[in-house]
């Protein structure tokens, strides 16, 4: 019965994915994001209650949680009229991934038995939250590059588009990474400690996640500005995509 909450969540995300295309409907899009996110929150809470713990360790389950975290991060930074194009970059893939997760089966309580909920929240939850933050940072960096290109080319409509200033995009990208990296550090540390206890070695996903940590750590350390900073944020995000969509299947098998 609670699984029916998938539909209002999808409706909200789907409406936002289209409504952000126009300035006139962007307010309705923001409400779509808010209502969809509330419906998905209720859905995830119901799933956790039914499983009696952390049920999102399967590929599709973690994708479900990832989408929720991405939308939550977007709600923190981006739900303002000037960030309409960020919504247009974030919401269509979020809605698509939400459907993919559903088609693949959604959450599973199976893995819960092997690992404690505390470990799963710290490891899976924090790593996914960090990845969600990096996704949003990539969206901000993409918007920066697009806007910077238009300013460079002296596009006459640049003021009509009502975009956020370049400086704001650069600052928000860096702040999002600064918030996300400690979460990734905690999540990774929990995973490595667990590996040592189990006497296992790093798998490809863990190695790639460590590399991702290195890239974002370098961004915070060297504080690259302008296009260079935006390209680095996108480079880090490419690693997140591979980790999240390609290598995460079977991590808890």
């Amino acid at each position: 019965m609670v699984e029916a909450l998938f539909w209002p969540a999808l409706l909200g995300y789907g409406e936002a994915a289209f409504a952000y295309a126009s300035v006139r409907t962007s307010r309705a899009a923001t409400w779509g994001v808010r209502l969809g996110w509330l419906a998905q929150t209720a859905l995830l809470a119901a799933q956790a209650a039914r499983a009696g713990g952390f049920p999102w360790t399967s590929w599709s389950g973690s994708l479900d949680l990832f989408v929720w975290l991405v939308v939550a991060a977007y709600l923190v930074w981006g739900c303002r009229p000037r960030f309409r194009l960020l919504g247009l970059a974030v919401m269509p893939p979020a809605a698509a991934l939400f459907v993919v997760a559903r088609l693949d089966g959604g959450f599973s309580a199976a893995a819960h038995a092997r690992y404690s909920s505390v470990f799963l929240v710290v490891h899976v939850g924090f790593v996914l939250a960090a990845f969600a933050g990096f996704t949003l940072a990539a969206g901000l960096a993409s918007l920066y590059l697009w806007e910077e290109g238009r300013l460079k080319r002296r596009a006459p409509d640049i003021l009509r588009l009502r975009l956020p200033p370049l400086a704001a995009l650069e600052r928000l990208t860096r702040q999002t990474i600064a918030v996300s990296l400690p979460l990734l550090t905690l999540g990774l540390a929990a995973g490595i400690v667990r590996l040592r206890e189990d006497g296992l070695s790093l798998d490809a996903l863990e190695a790639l996640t460590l590399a991702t940590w290195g890239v974002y750590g370098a961004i915070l350390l060297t504080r690259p500005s302008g296009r260079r900073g935006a390209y680095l944020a996108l480079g880090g995000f490419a690693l997140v995509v591979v980790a999240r969509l390609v290598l995460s299947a079977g991590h808890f098998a």
Partner: protein
Amino acid sequence: MSSLSLVGVSHHVAPVELRERVALDLDAAAALAREVGDAVCLSTCNRTELYVADEDDGRAAAALNRLAGDSLDGVAYRLHDDAAAVHLFRVAAGLDSLVPGEAEILGQVREAFEAVEPGPLLDRVFRQALAVGKRVRAETAIGESPASVSSAAAALAAQVFGDLTGRRVLLVGAGRIGALAAGNLASRGAEIAFVANRSSQAAQRVAQRFGATAVGLDELETALGTVDVVVAATGAPGTVVTAADVPERRRRPLFLIDIAVPRDLDPAIASLGGCFLYDIDDLEAVVAETIAGRRAEAVRAEQLVAEEAERFRTWRASLDVVPAIASLRAYAEQIRAGELAKLGGRVSERERRTLESVTQQILNKLLHVPTVRLKEAAAGADGASYADAVRHLFGLEDS
């Protein structure tokens, strides 16, 4: 019913030579309004208009003729009632301005209104006009884009840096146009750090105005390394700043505005990393685009004005029936109170309170539908005849 009249001249119908003859400062405009009667005088550089709560606009027209020193027949427009109200709403919304959506007019309407003590009709129409102006600015983007080259330059700089507070500006050239652009940046919080010019005397004069440092053209390269925005507007026949003069930008972007013809800044600067270069053609293209945007928003704004005009018309029409409704209610209340008084001491205090409450409710229920119907009739064309019918049926003519 009270009548609203308007007599005025504006940039649509009168050249500046005529407008300047009838232009008044706020105090003089208020004095003229008082002289005319229950009136408000709105006088700006683009218009002088007298709004009068009187069917006869003769005194207002005569007052304007006297100011102009000549008859304004054929030039001045004269509007009445709903048309006058719609005109005021459009003025307050910036839709009648030279640049659609300009924001200053709303403040001028407010000042003109607050400078006098108008009667109920003018009070209502001006309050609604101020609300229309605010609504149009809140619900459309008509006033958000710059409408001049210098304000576009400042808006573009803000698009790069966000808040311009503390951003350092180098002004190359000491002419009026450059100073105007620099003034626009300063009004957004930017600091005019240097003024560079061939003539050091002119540079000193402009630098003093902005609290900046005057430098020679030979010091440009050093100044360029420390600023965020460059405004170039000299009368030099060739390039003043070449790409080689611009130090490499590592962490801070550089926004360059070239409003000189021939251009002062080497176009090759645009290809340098972190540099954004806009010349006069680019800025004019941006302004043309934003004005086109304002015109598109003006269509939506006109819809809002039409909605408000309909509300005003309904309110004005309701004035026809308000006295009849008030008389009817007073008459009913008089009967109710009289009948209760006849009870004298035959009922207890508690029973009296109950009777008061019950009879009041009966009265309200009985009068609710006739009141609503009368207001509905007033919104159409039948308000006056319905009001007459009510007065006749209940014998209210003598009350």
